[in-house]
């Protein structure tokens, strides 16, 4: 086999992706097989060196698991939903009386108008039926008692 593996083929081999064609070539070509083996070994060596170095560095490192007790009120999972629901219910309950106060049953306009009309008519009737003005009604009463005739202040004497 005259052609060797391309750089991409060698990279694919190191990554771990080998097609049958490439595998066949590696079995036949010691040069390419050697190159793939060298690269793989070098990178594996690098990986283990990094792991060892990291292990040494990690020796004094103490990573603490986050405190399961909530630091913040809203970290409390399901409890926060319960609190939120209760708050909403309380707000709604408080809002109902306020709503009722602001929306009292209005007295129908026609009814008030009718009442005031009746009162006005009664008042007019009273005024018309007076024989003397209101201010001298007491004197008029005295006069009627002197003559023996009895009239009411509201009675008509025409």
């Amino acid at each position, binding site marked *: 086999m005259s052609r060797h593996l391309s750089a991409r083929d060698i990279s694919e081999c190191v*990554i771990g992706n080998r097609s049958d064609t490439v595998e066949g070539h590696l079995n036949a070509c010691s040069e390419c097989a050697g190159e793939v083996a060298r690269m793989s070994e070098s990178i594996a060596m690098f*990986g283990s060196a990094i792991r060892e170095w990291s292990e040494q560095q990690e020796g004094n490192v103490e990573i603490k698991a986050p405190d399961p007790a909530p630091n913040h009120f809203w970290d409390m999972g399901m409890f926060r939903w319960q609190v939120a629901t209760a708050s909403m219910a309380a707000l709604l309950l408080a809002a109902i009386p306020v709503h009722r106060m602001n929306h009292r049953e209005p007295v129908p306009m026609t009814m008030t108008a009718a009442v005031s009309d009746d009162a006005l008519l009664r008042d007019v009737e009273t005024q018309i039926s007076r024989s003397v003005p209101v201010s001298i009604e007491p004197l008029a009463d005295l006069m009627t008692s002197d003559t023996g005739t009895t009239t009411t202040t509201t009675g008509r004497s025409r």
Partner: protein
Amino acid sequence: MESVLQPEFTLSIAEQTAGELADFESVVRQYQSAIFRYILASLRDRDAAETLTQDCFLKAYQARDGFRGESSVKTWMMRIAVNLVRDHISNARLRFWRRTQRASIDLSLAGDWLTDSKSSPEAVANARQLVAAIWSAVDELSDKQRTVFLLRFVEEMDILEIVAATGIKEGTVKVHLFRALQAVRAKIAGGKQ
């Protein structure tokens, strides 16, 4: 017997992962090393790695209710770590600090991390030189190339896990990996000459 065991087998992945997240202390114990290692290798700053690892678990804890089990817990944790590292790197002030840190400690000590007592001194020296060359190549990669390279070859995640952890499309992950490997290969070849 089957009927007793059946409920265990019918647990969905989401239920399993939710159960795994319920005991958060064991999640920390299980994934602390991988998260710390990825952040340390990305930033090469031990203090930042420690802080960001703590932040990573805090974020995961706060977001655990929203975890839907679409990936493994490790992939999900790694995604948080990848985002934290990206945010950290994007901070220009910290980037300056990171460069200063790197220049002073990294490359001179890179080879010392190999402890293979079985090899001959010459082989150990060659291995250290090789690791230093790769470390130097990784240092020069773009942030995305470095991320996918570290996730693949240090954390040994497969392509689909890297896709899930980074949010980068599969084809793009492969391109980043290919370019990273090309850079590493060139560095190794240059080191031998």
